[in-house]
């Protein structure tokens, strides 16, 4: 792990200069605010925009605080992941394409240190992001609806974080293996197609990384089968480690793809 701290510093500085520590958390905070607010003001919004006829009555279901957290996680799962993967998926392949990677690859650095430093910086960014997102969502939920139990909330938060680590590992692995365009396609396909498949035929299995996001809210509801939960969690952790190892190997192999 030669030069690990130097590489880590370089990655942090790059993310800082690109304002990644600021704008991605802000986007997640906005996504988190979105659902509690729109649900709370649904009647007002309908009155303001949609020609509601005289005497029209609509039954809006009584929402529990956990329902709103689930809705916010749903937002993170689509728009949040889209933004996060779009910003991270080019991090290795773009360096190769622009020729900047030459400056690193000619030095005696270890590829695993380089890969891991990228992974650590990205996981820090995503940690701050979902912290902001969860805080915003829970803040609005607690003002407008009611409070959540802090212990299970933390459990759900870290469950979601493990899932995000898996997503980052997949994005980085693809970035190390292919050119930017192909890497983006592959990473998006794997993550989003996995979600769709899990949604459609997911009742037939209970253990998969794609289920973790919904398991987080089940933890709060208290209807979670704990053995399924632990199995999914460990499967995800193993998949993450496998993705990281493949990424390091592919990064080494593709070092010759650098444009000079």
């Amino acid at each position, binding site marked *: 792990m030669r030069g690990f701290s130097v590489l880590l510093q370089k990655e942090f500085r790059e993310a800082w200069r*690109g304002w990644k520590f600021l704008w991605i958390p802000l986007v997640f905070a906005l996504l988190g605010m979105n659902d509690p607010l729109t649900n709370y003001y649904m009647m007002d919004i309908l009155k303001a925009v949609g020609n509601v006829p005289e005497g029209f009555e609509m039954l809006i279901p009584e929402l529990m605080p956990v329902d709103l957290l689930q809705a916010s996680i749903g937002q993170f799962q689509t728009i949040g992941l889209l933004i996060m993967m779009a910003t991270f998926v080019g991090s290795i392949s773009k360096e190769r394409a622009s020729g900047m990677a030459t400056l690193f690859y000619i030095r005696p650095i270890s590829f695993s240190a380089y890969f891991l430093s990228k992974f650590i910086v990205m996981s820090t960014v995503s940690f701050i992001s979902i912290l902001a997102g969860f805080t915003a969502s829970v803040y609005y939920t607690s003002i407008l609806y009611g409070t959540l139990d802090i212990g299970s909330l933390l459990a759900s938060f870290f469950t979601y974080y493990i899932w995000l680590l898996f997503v980052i590992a997949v994005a980085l692995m693809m970035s190390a293996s292919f050119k930017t365009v192909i890497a983006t396609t592959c990473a998006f396909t794997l993550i989003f197609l996995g979600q769709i498949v899990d949604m459609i035929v997911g009742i037939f299995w209970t253990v998969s990384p794609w289920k973790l996001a919904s398991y987080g809210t089940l933890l709060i509801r208290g209807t979670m089968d704990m053995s399924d939960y632990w199995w999914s969690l460990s499967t995800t952790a193993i998949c993450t480690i496998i993705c990281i190892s493949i990424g390091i190997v592919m990064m080494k192999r593709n070092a010759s793809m650098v444009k000079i």
Partner: protein
Amino acid sequence: MMEELAKVPWAVIAPLIVVQLILMIVALVDLRKIHATNGPKILWVFIIIFANLIGSIAYFIVGRRQS
């Protein structure tokens, strides 16, 4: 006019506006400092200001050119 303004639940709305403003200002500051963007700079100014939330996110994802 003032009564209308007073009726708005500011405790609820204010954080939303603040976050949006910060995002816009950061995007504009970055645009001021950056050397070159994908596409004309003046276009990004208009996108960031008028497409308020989507505009600044779009700028950060596709507008910044990495050199």
